[in-house]
């Protein structure tokens, strides 16, 4: 188990390093920030001076090495736009995005998984019918579309909820449902198809042969087995939802990381982009690592492999 854990952590570190390397190179390919930082009438010599001050005239490999050394000290560079440490800029915006993403994922799991189980237990029953409808809408339209519809109905027409902004729970309801609907749809379909398959397995038949009550057959014997791929899918959803949050954040004027990244790319604010992407990669690999460990906890065949 310890060996498994060590290997997985090492793999995660390599993944994050690769991500930082790729974003470091790509953002430098997009453009030179000195064009945006200096007035148009500045000479090439002025620009070269600024590049040297910012360390941009060195070879990329040297720059990256310097960046890595800084990173080890928790320093992610300065944002020239905000004149603040890039890490602080990102950390100031990561909270709302995480809140939105986690709430949406929770909605997705709490709605999708029970619906998937219920519809697999009685295929073509009324719950199955309802669940298929929910899944169809959730996957057919992008989250921001539901966001706009929600605003139209619940804010403009009914006046129940604020149209946009950030604050108490009333602001969280519409964006998280609009985003969570999408992941509920996928989770429901995956849970349903896995449960259908597991429910016809020999070990589920054996549980029934033993006289295990149907409830325990479904929730103990079948769901535990069907949950493994669902767990992986849910952890991938986390990344997808963080990406989807960008459009939802603009619809609801949510002060999250999505808009920050977009603006920073447009302004070639290297340090902020790097910090935001690195933090996202860290969170994503941390979640994947947790899921892998959960997997090993649930499935003994992995534990000893």
């Amino acid at each position, binding site marked *: 188990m310890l060996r498994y854990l060590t290997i997985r952590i090492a793999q995660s570190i390599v993944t994050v390093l690769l991500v930082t390397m790729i974003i470091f190179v790509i953002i430098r390919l997009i453009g030179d920030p000195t064009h945006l930082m200096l007035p148009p009438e500045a000479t090439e010599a002025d620009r070269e001076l600024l590049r040297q001050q910012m360390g941009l005239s060195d070879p990329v490999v040297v720059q990256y090495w310097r960046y890595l050394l800084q990173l080890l000290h928790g320093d992610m560079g300065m944002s020239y736009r905000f004149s603040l440490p890039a890490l602080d800029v990102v950390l100031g915006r990561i909270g709302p995005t995480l809140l939105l993403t986690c709430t949406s994922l929770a909605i997705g799991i709490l709605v999708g998984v029970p619906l998937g189980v219920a519809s697999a237990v009685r295929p073509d029953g009324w719950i199955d019918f309802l669940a298929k409808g929910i899944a169809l809408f959730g996957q057919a339209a992008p989250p921001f579309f539901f966001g706009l519809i929600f605003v139209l109905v619940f804010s403009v027409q009914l006046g129940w909820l604020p149209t946009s902004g950030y604050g108490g729970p009333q602001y969280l309801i519409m964006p998280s449902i609009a985003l969570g609907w999408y992941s509920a749809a996928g989770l429901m379909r995956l849970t349903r198809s896995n449960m259908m398959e597991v429910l*016809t*397995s*020999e*070990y589920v*038949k*054996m*549980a*029934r*042969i*033993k*006289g*295990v*009550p*149907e409830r*325990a057959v479904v929730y*103990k*014997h079948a769901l*535990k*087995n069907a949950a493994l791929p669902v767990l992986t899918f849910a952890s991938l959803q986390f990344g997808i939802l963080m990406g989807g949050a960008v459009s939802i954040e603009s619809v609801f004027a949510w002060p999250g990381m999505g808009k920050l990244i977009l603006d920073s790319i447009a302004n070639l604010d290297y340090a902020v982009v790097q910090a935001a992407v690195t933090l996202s990669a860290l969170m994503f690999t941390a979640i994947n690592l947790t899921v892998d460990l959960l997997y090993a906890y*649930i*499935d*003994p*065949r992995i534990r*000893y492999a």
Partner: protein
Amino acid sequence: MSDLLRVENLTTWLATESGIVTAVDDVSFSVRAGRTLALVGESGSGKSMTCSSIMRLLPGNGRIAGGRVLFEGEDLLAKSPAGMEAIRGRKIGMIVQDPMTSLNPLLDVEDQVGEVFKYHLGDRSRRLRRPKVVDVLSRVHIPAAEKRLGSYPHEFSGGMRQRVAIALNIACAPKLLIADEPTTALDVTVQQQILALLRELQRGTGMAIILVTHDLHTVQRFCDEVAIMYAGRIVEQGPVSEIFARPAHPYTQGLLRALPQLGSQEERLPLIPGQPPSLSSLPPGCRFAPRCPRATDLCRTEYPDWMATSGETRRSACWYADEVLG
């Protein structure tokens, strides 16, 4: 002595791509306590469907269309779902073909065996169940049982897994054990061990066994009665010794002739020509008629009545049973 299990005119339908077929057709037999009945037939002859019908655990496309399954005088087909749950695993056990897939890969052995005590005997605490689990695992000869409690199915060999499956089915001392091809997926040497174990358990407890198999040698050595199935129907049934000595149905005769004999000089075994009919396009008369060397026009148009041969103990569904008997 009265019958422990009496199946009367059991008929089971299966919805398939080619329409509804009758997988089990008007099947009747009975088993007495302490005895072993063999259900013999080719794949698709309805043996397993008969067992699943008795347990009322048919696949989603199956439905019991008629008949009665009297167990200790009560009709299992009339029981509520909860009533069946109380009987399964407690009074009737069942082991299935492939021990590689019949145990839950995510639950340890103690949990899977202990569940039987939990749901049938109300032993809620894992600690209290433990000695009982160890005891039943030792009864199926799992070595160092108390050390294997935390093991998972993948840590056992096929034969050991089948022993675990047997353990959880005999844990509550059932009156009847249905063994649906329990050794088909196992090595030959392990097969003998499992059969020996079943016999040992039967001697100790007096439970009845229904053994589904297509191995006639096993039937001969292990069983008291035999029912031969062909295309969903029983074609001949009776005591093993009598039927093996003098079969009264051409199909049984063909099966026995195709049995390799030790020391035989024959190079090729006489096989039954042709294939069993598809359940969706059965011949109008006797289902074996297209392959039967004795078939007449009567056989081809009308399904034969039961012919009692040699008294009341055995019967054959062949118009010419007496001639076959010789």
